[in-house]
């Protein structure tokens, strides 16, 4: 387990793929230090808060998530349960092939015996390998950074599952019944975390897992706009940093881990 989690603070610091890094320096050069903190923040916040239903999503927002690994407790599955309920996954403990959109991992340092537990889901990469390999274009990245499967064009070849370094995707092997209206899913398609797009498009600005974690009092998951320097997630990333799993791949993930 340990080898898939790379401590990469030094890499992160130098990585050109860090969220918004190049954009911020560019903006800084153009508008100057005073404009940097106010003008982009205000503009982006308005876009994130209320997108009219008839307008397409834009790249002014990039949705991301920061998981505080130290606040995540081993016996809690609130995020996983909330995801299952939100998307109607109804997992069957007896099935070997049930879909997992989010799961809890436990990693142990074999030298010190120190264990950490945290949720892993689709990392919503800026350069997603699943999109690169998809033969039909069904795997795609939305303008706001969410990586999705267009199930209308997915042929179920599972190339994306092999390409994903995070094992974040699942294939539906059996006929399904009683799917929920906001999460259509069916046999023969690959699926994964969609960052609750239906909630984001409705302007809720959060995900089921983040809400559940807040409600449970752990507050380990911060969800927000990585492009907005004033957002809580950007502020937390600035203060505490956030490691990427397998940062060496240079995928610039939208999901970051604090304390890993």
């Amino acid at each position, binding site marked *: 387990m340990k080898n898939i989690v790379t401590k990469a603070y030094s890499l992160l610091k130098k990585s050109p793929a860090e969220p918004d890094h190049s954009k911020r320096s560019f903006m800084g050069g153009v508008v100057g230090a005073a404009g940097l903190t106010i003008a982009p923040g205000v503009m982006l916040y308005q876009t994130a808060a209320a997108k009219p239903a008839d307008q397409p999503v834009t790249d002014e927002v990039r949705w991301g998530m920061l998981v505080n690994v130290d606040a995540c407790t081993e016996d809690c599955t609130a995020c996983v349960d909330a995801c299952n309920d939100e998307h109607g996954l109804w997992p069957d403990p007896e099935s070997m092939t049930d879909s997992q959109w989010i799961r809890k991992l436990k990693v142990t340092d074999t030298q010190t015996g120190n264990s950490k537990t945290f949720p892993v889901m689709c990392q919503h990469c800026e350069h997603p390998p699943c999109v690169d390999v998809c033969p039909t274009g069904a795997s795609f990245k939305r303008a*706001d950074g969410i990586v999705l499967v267009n*199930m209308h064009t997915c042929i179920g070849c599972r190339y994306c599952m092999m390409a994903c370094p995070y094992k974040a995707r699942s294939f539906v092997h059996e006929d399904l*019944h*009683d799917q929920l209206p906001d999460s259509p899913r069916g046999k023969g398609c690959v699926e994964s975390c969609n960052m609750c797009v239906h909630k984001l498009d*409705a302007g809720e600005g959060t995900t089921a897992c983040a809400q559940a974690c807040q409600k449970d009092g752990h507050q380990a998951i911060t969800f927000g706009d990585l492009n907005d320097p004033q957002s809580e997630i950007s502020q937390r990333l600035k203060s505490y940093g956030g490691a990427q799993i397998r940062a060496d791949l240079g995928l610039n993930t939208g999901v970051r881990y604090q304390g890993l």
Partner: protein
Amino acid sequence: MKMTTTVRVLLVSLILLLPLAAAESSKIPPPKGDQCVEETEWMRVHHFETILHQRDETVKKGIRTTKHSLKNCISCHITANDAGVYARYSDKEQHFCASCHEYTAVTIDCFHCHSDRPEEAVRESIEKYQKDGQHPHHVTHSSTSDLILNSKLLTAQ
């Protein structure tokens, strides 16, 4: 010999008229509201075009206007019957979409993935399964077998 032919003709006519009779005697619960988002006559012919157009807009661009969304179709057209039950797509008599698709011999696969009932009805079913100790995905409904049977019949014809 003559009698047999007459009986045969009668039987064939009866079989041909059966779907019509079934459609007329069906009890589809009334939809919500007085007026569909488009003219009924136009919708009968073109509803799938609007749904097809909107699906790409929604999946790729996040455009979620309700006027032509499948979710909106379902939330208005699929209502509870007198017994408080929401018909599944497998119910060819009471499900609004299924009744007409059955009559016109159209086989679609929207409802393999998309919900055939409003969310409250699905959640209600799930609660019932959980009370009965069943698993939602392992409960056998006739929908899938019906679809397979239909496609087999169509191939045979």
